[in-house]
């Protein structure tokens, strides 16, 4: 039994009514092919993997200049073979959402607002805070044993990052700075 997208959506649990289903691009096959042709003509697809759950579905991203024009399930991907759930389908909006923060922000102690700052300012602050706290709280030796740690800075996160990022984060915060409180979403 070949599942149609509609049947699939039914079991995939989209609570929405038909209207939303059509908006999501789960339109009749013909119409969809046509609109797709129109929208993505001459654009090069870039393969990516869905950023949400760990099924790891393939997605093709069609972009032009500063715009993600269109995204669709990767038909060559062995797991999803072109289909996507509601989250994978709407991945374009991770880019287009007006809620995206596009500049570093700073909140001074006691302030009730963010201020926009530049990267130099922001990264300098981060580095200085880390160094100041680390150096003041660092335990180099304890009962004669070299322990090289600080228990005063914590790191959280990683389940949505790339492997290469996880490697560097772990290296910097544990092997370099000596943090003990290193945790991420697998624990919660």
């Amino acid at each position, binding site marked *: *039994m070949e*599942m149609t997208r509609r049947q*699939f959506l039914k*079991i*995939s*649990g*989209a609570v929405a009514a038909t209207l939303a289903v059509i908006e999501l691009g789960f339109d009749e096959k013909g119409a969809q092919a046509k609109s797709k042709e129109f929208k993505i003509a001459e654009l090069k697809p*870039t*393969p*990516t993997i869905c950023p*949400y*759950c*760990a*099924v*790891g579905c393939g997605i093709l*991203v069609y*972009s032009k200049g500063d715009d993600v024009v269109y995204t669709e399930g990767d038909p060559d991907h*062995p797991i999803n073979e072109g289909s996507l*759930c509601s989250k994978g389908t709407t991945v374009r909006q*991770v880019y287009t*959402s007006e*809620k995206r*923060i596009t500049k570093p*922000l700073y*909140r001074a102690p006691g302030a009730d607002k*963010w201020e926009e700052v530049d990267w130099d300012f922001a*990264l*300098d602050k981060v*580095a200085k805070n*880390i160094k100041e706290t680390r150096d003041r709280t*660092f335990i180099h030796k304890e009962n004669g044993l070299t*322990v*090289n740690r600080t*228990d*005063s*800075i*914590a790191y*959280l*996160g*990683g*389940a*949505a*990052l*790339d*492997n290469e*990022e*996880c490697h*560097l984060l*772990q*290296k910097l915060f*544990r092997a370099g*700075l*000596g943090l*003990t409180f*290193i*945790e*991420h*979403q697998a*624990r*919660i």
Partner: protein
Amino acid sequence: MTNHWNDLKHADVLMIIGANPAENHPISFRWILKALEKGGKLISVDPRFTRTSQMANVYGQLRSGTDIPFIGGMINYILENELYHKEYVAAYTNAAYIIEDTYSFEDGMFSGYDKDKRSYDKTKWAFKKDEEGKTLQDPTLKDPNCVFQLMKKHFSRYDIDTVIGVTGTAKETYLDICKTYASTGEVGKAGTILYAMGGTQHTVGTQNIRSYAILQLLLGNIGIQGGGVNALRGESNVQGSTDFGLLYDNVPGYMQVPTTAETDFTYQGFLDRITPKEGYWVNKPKFYTSMLKSFYGDNATKGNDFGYDYLPKLSAGRNYSFMRLFDAMYRKELEGLLLFGSNPAVGGPNAGKEIESLSNLKWMVAVDLFETETSSFWQKEAGADPASIQTEVIFLPASSSFEKEGSVTNSGRWMQYRWQAIKPKGESKADLEIVHMLARKLKDMYKNSSNPADMPMKAMTWDYGESDHPDIDLVCREINGYDMKTKQQVKIFGDLKDDGSTCSGNWIYCGFYPENENLAKRRDSTDEGMSNFLNWSFAWPANRRILYNRASADLNGKAWSKDRVGIEWNALEGKWKGHDVPDFVVTKGPDDPTFIDPFIMMAGGKGAIFASINEGPLPEHYEPYENPMKNSFSSVQLNPAVQFGEEEMNAQGDVSKYPIVATTYRLSEHWQSGAMTRSQEWLAELVPHMFVEISEELASEKGIKNKDKIVVSSARGEIEAYAMVTKRFKPYKLKEKTVHHIGMPWHFGYKGIVTGGSANRLTPHIGDANSTIPEYKAFLCDVRRAK
């Protein structure tokens, strides 16, 4: 997952317990449906009738927190009716091992308990050895002290009537599930167990998963195509971030972090402590030293124990896990918090108290795509008084997954590459770039220091290029590992050395980046047999797709079933061959006595029916921290090895005040704390409101109608939400009483396009005795109509 997504289609029976893939891993259902089309059977076990249950042949209703009785009863049924896979159990598991006489079990307690420490002396449950140190065995499985007999005795208490009096499952349904699933014990059949956080997020979470594994070993379902114990992971790279050691007690590749214990004073002493005497882990020193070389490069020498002293040593016996981290923050011991895509103000247990703790920080750094409830905890809309909060907050805008390049590892351990499709939005930057710039800045700040405390920072290598944008290929080459002299990439972890001549950032990924080629980028989707797609991406370890696949073949090396060939012994060629990369020494033939030891990571090579973890060697039922009834199996109410944290973080509710059992879950349209999905128009519109599902019976008792605004309260706090009156929850008929059960999504908070009450304001701050994962999935509450 021991297996992978496409492989689900090979199952004869699938039991999904504590997971709801139809809604939370929707595309996985393609492969589940393929199994059903071929006549496969689907069992869904869940407190709520989910969309997975709707597709199932049998649905078993299960009160949150009673997996061990449920599975224990199945184990008992299988043993009593001799439905297990006899050859497999006798040869491939530790069923034949003899246990020391010091082992005992009485009224819910194993021997060796220390009440003050709430912990066991596990040596009391050791395997009995002969003079040469070999484990004594009884292949007939008759010795009363062998694992098989002890297990039989242990689970004989899980008779059907006691079980269903605890789980609330209807008797006929329960028997049907036992029978259907036990059918996979027949030689040649395959059954798979799929679970998610419904299994793990309990004070007995690890033992829940152990109970699934024991069931699978008894039925001969591990190592075979269409079988396995399969964790459905909820985040695109939660597998990878775990593999890469972003946990307090793990460095990359599932190895330990040194502590201040006396054994760890020297590198050799530490290695002796963490290296088992048998099994593949005997190679751990090679992996560890190679990892230290990836951290400290040429600054790691034989003379300085490869930089072992540079590594932080955890305070021995101290737990630094997520909840203890917040305890420390609550006690004002933490000054700084770095968040890389993390939103504990919505996702953490007892979130109200955790948010309160945030204001004890001196500074916070949040790296994210969107403003989260955590990064803005100081705002008025969070209910805070900004003027009184002295925390300095720096928000660094990150770019999303297709605005950068890199790999993620899915649930089936496939490491898949994501190419950059567009340049980062606005001024946002990839996390890789952020950590790179930060590391370079810090290294620069420490470069002239002669303080011994700063040596780790100075010794740490950071050779990923001189520009702000790191060369990701150099990062990948380091993760894979290379020969320190020739700089040639290492081909496989078997080539790693403990003499400092090789480096490898993560030994389990070794082999993904041979000379000049990143195998995570492979896109050949040809199925060369059994849907293992060996040329698509790279699966760790060594591109093996089904773990323990030696067990897919019988004692002579022939596949148990012609339809399910994983690997087989080819006598002519003198090697293992088949549709997968052997998870076994390729040339190990029948002449070798260890030819029948498929579980290569385990001492003795046998699957662990009996395995010593913190609360005992066999799963035993204890009630959740908050529970509606007395434990039916013993007088011990709570898991005796559970550790308590900061008392004020951990209020406990009583059934007299909070009579309703509650659980949390996820939806298709939102993801985790909702920071990403509630910030986009379409998904926000699809599910715009926080709701709580309550049964028709409870609704009528409380005078609540569908869509009414209600208040849900627990000992930790209360939230408002819309009532969704549903048939998906039914009252539970337990031994002594009937209890109500409700459920709610945990995706909501006050930021984003759509907002709503955070379910985690209700959840308890207590967790599993081994992993310390919080008990989100079973707690007590009450509901009332909002005024």
